[in-house]
């Protein structure tokens, strides 16, 4: 990752992490961080918190669009397959029906739509999230194993233009966390 910046003699810094005990505190802190002008920051929680992306001013509607287009492709593939088979490659008279008997193509077209859309949803979602990615600098942060249990974290990344080792640390401490710690960047 290119997030790392050099701090004199110290370790490479990924950012500062603040730990909170309650989801509400995290939402408040995220809102204040966004208001303070930070852009490169992220919140970590053991469950999805409603209102948190809005507080972070984070918007991303690509997943629904990916799903939609995958569904459209699935419909075209499903219908096209049947059309190709019954009209061009293997025409067969079944009870006097026309070769292009579209009514009977509907079930398979529908199933293909759902199949492609569902695959698009899962692959698209994990892909945009940058997963699978077994290692990430925040995993090394103190107490971070509790981010999947009962603690809430806010990380301001060093790549943010407004990041300043001392000022950012003091800003995070002003948000009322239980602790603020340094997150070291990955050795490249």
């Amino acid at each position: 990752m290119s997030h790392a910046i050099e701090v004199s003699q110290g370790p490479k810094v990924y950012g500062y992490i603040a730990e909170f005990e309650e989801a509400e505190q995290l939402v408040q802190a995220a809102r204040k961080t966004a208001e303070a002008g930070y852009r490169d920051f992220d919140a970590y929680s053991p469950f999805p918190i409603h209102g948190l992306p809005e507080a972070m001013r984070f918007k991303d509607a690509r997943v629904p669009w990916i799903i939609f287009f995958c569904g459209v492709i699935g419909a075209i593939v499903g219908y096209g397959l049947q059309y190709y088979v019954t009209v061009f490659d293997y025409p067969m008279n079944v009870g006097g029906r026309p070769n292009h008997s579209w009514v009977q193509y509907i079930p398979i077209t529908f199933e293909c739509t759902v199949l492609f859309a569902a695959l698009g949803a899962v692959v698209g979602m994990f892909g945009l999230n940058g997963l699978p990615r077994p290692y990430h600098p925040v995993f090394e942060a103190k107490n971070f194993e509790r981010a999947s249990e009962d603690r809430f974290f806010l990380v301001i990344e060093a790549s943010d233009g407004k990041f300043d080792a001392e000022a950012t640390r003091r800003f995070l401490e002003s948000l009322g966390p239980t602790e603020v710690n340094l997150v070291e960047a990955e050795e490249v």
Partner: protein
Amino acid sequence: MAETLTKPHDEEPLIEGNQTYASLTETVAGVVQRQKDHPKAWFVAFVLGFGLVNVLLLSITYLVYMGIGIWGNNQPVAWSFDIINFVWWIGIGHAGTLISAILLLMRQEWRTSINRFAEAMTIFAVMCAGMYPLLHTGRPWVAYWLLPYPNILAMWPQPRSPLVWDVFAVSTYMTVSILFWYTGLVPDLATLRDRVKNRFAKVLAGMGSLGWRGSAKHWMRYEQAYIILAGLSTPLVLSVHTIVSFDFAVSILPGWQATIFPPYFVAGAVYAGFAMVLTFMIPMRRWYRIEHLVTMNHIDWMAKIMLTTGLIVFYGYIVEVFYAWYSANPYEQFMMWNRWHGPYAPAYWLLILCNGVIPQLLWSKKNRRNLKLVFAVSLVVSLGMWLERFIIIPVSLHRDFLPSSWGMYYPTIWDFGMFFGTIGFFVMMMFLFVRFIPMISIFEVRELWSRIRPQRAEVKEVEA
């Protein structure tokens, strides 16, 4: 959202007791972490399931060696246990999708405690279902002929046939069910990764969790994808059993050709599925001490859904009788006469007793909260739904239009071997599942708890 935060139906909470995020996590993840603490009942059930899996393997081996002549299928009854069990199992799977997808879209928050378990049931039930048509082809090693692909035979499957629709519907259903289940599992595997001490388990959970770290940006896309997957699964589950019912409804056989089949099959599927969820959940919640997560309310509501879908199914039976009379078609009328008075009449009346009469006990709230009674009713319903497919399939086939082509059907020991074998496979897989995978969605329980816990209510009052 604010309205749904309070418990809509009852005063009793969805999660009982004084909990914390950590205690909820410990309850569910602890089952997987403390491998030495499993109840004796686990071993009994697993050994039983494993024993029956061996019966299944024996039955399949002999079947592949000899051919499907070892079954009782004949002319005119060319479809029997193979298709009965296929429809029975796939129907059982449908409750999982209903709980995980439809109840999610309807914001029925009580689903949180049972969706993971029910989804696992879906996957294993569809595996059991899938075995039957593949083995019924007689040459399962060329089962891939069912799929459309360019081949040197220069032939394609016939897309006008409901049986080919079935191939697409069931394989899509299987794929989407696994995707949905796995997507729900990823954050919980991350929890396991962070908790377990054993190095091997940690690496395994770490790989399964894909490096999930609970980022708010990830959660947002996750929820977008999850809710849309639920929206896709909902019509999918309806389409699967509709297409299964088309296997019959599209033919001209009396007893099969009926426009009521799609809704009546879907309702029957949910009915059988909830019966199976209850059959497993009632003992499981006690063995693993999760009664504060799967509360009496959950049992009560599942019993209500069972009662409702049971009434739809019973309505279907009545409509079939009505059609037989109203159509004035002698073949339809004979079909119904044959169900009532023919050689398989006891099966029909047992079906009415199991699916129509006994479930009426669930009208009473007291009965719905009597665990032994609900457990017994759910077993009766499972039997009833099996009998329903028996009545529809062999009983319709054995006497069709021409008396000269009538016959009788008697299952052989190999039919029962396959049937009980798949039950064993199902039991074994379910018990392996509860041992190695969190059987309740931990992150969803935490999320629910964050909204219903008492402190939160006080905070809201202060704000308001």
